């Protein structure tokens, strides 16, 4: 427990590490989401074109 408290600086140190993790995960999640959306859009458009022919 003493280690985690970081000699009274725990709040600062842990918030920094936590925030870094959060930003990286969020950014990666957004990137995955965008990839899926782009892929889906193209898929829908191409399938629609295919069916019309």
């Amino acid at each position, binding site marked *: 427990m003493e280690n985690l408290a*970081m000699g009274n*600086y725990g709040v600062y140190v842990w918030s920094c590490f936590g925030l870094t993790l959060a930003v990286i995960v969020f950014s990666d999640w957004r*990137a995955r989401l965008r*990839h899926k959306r782009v*892929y889906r859009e193209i898929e829908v458009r191409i399938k629609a074109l295919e069916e019309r022919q």
Partner: protein
Amino acid sequence: MWKFFHRLASPPHFYRLAAVFAPWFALPALVLIAYGVYAGLFLAPMDYQQGDAFRIIYVHVPSAYLSIMAYMIMAISGGIGLIWRMKLAHAVAAAAAPLGAAFTFLALVTGSIWGRPMWGTWWEWGDPRLTSELILLFLYFGYMALRGAIDDTAKADKASAVLALVGVVNVVIVHYSVEWWSSLHQGQTLLKEGGPAMDPGMLYPLLAMILGFTFLFGSLLLRRVRTEVLFRERRTRWVREMILSPEGS
């Protein structure tokens, strides 16, 4: 060699390769960062001046370093795209911008959180690094705003490449001018340049973190470039064939 680059630059080839390579970046990133975080938080000795608060450098320094590197990547690939009309290079530049901005933001916030116990304030204008970092963030905002404002992708690519190249010259000038400015008004900074040599117990985790963040950045960038390539090539035959093929992707 040339042939290899040429093939790499072809969008369908890159699209497939990026999917294969992304885990090869993610894996070392994970290992290095796991070691760095553990060693940095628990094994590294305490700094005699800053106490445990110094452990913030294990996320601050890699972020700050990536913020600069991402801008360089953006400018260099923008330049390559302008000169050799390589479309993949523009896709890399477009993908690097939001990532670079995210790491700049991280460097700023972690620096500011460190400043709270050290300076007793959340923001200290006297610190040259934080100030330069803030200007860098504005440069990223400008770059992304310009990209967002131009509808035609090809035009947006070229215009923002010019801006990034102008910006990269400016980053250097910002660095030195801010340094000069803060030397007029004393300031303490998170990482002292040319200060006493770091204890190896402190240094190795930091190096591991820097290397780990670089790999992480590589893997994040690959994924984004992949999306960018897919979007830009949405009207081409290879995308059509890939989507219609039974295994998909």
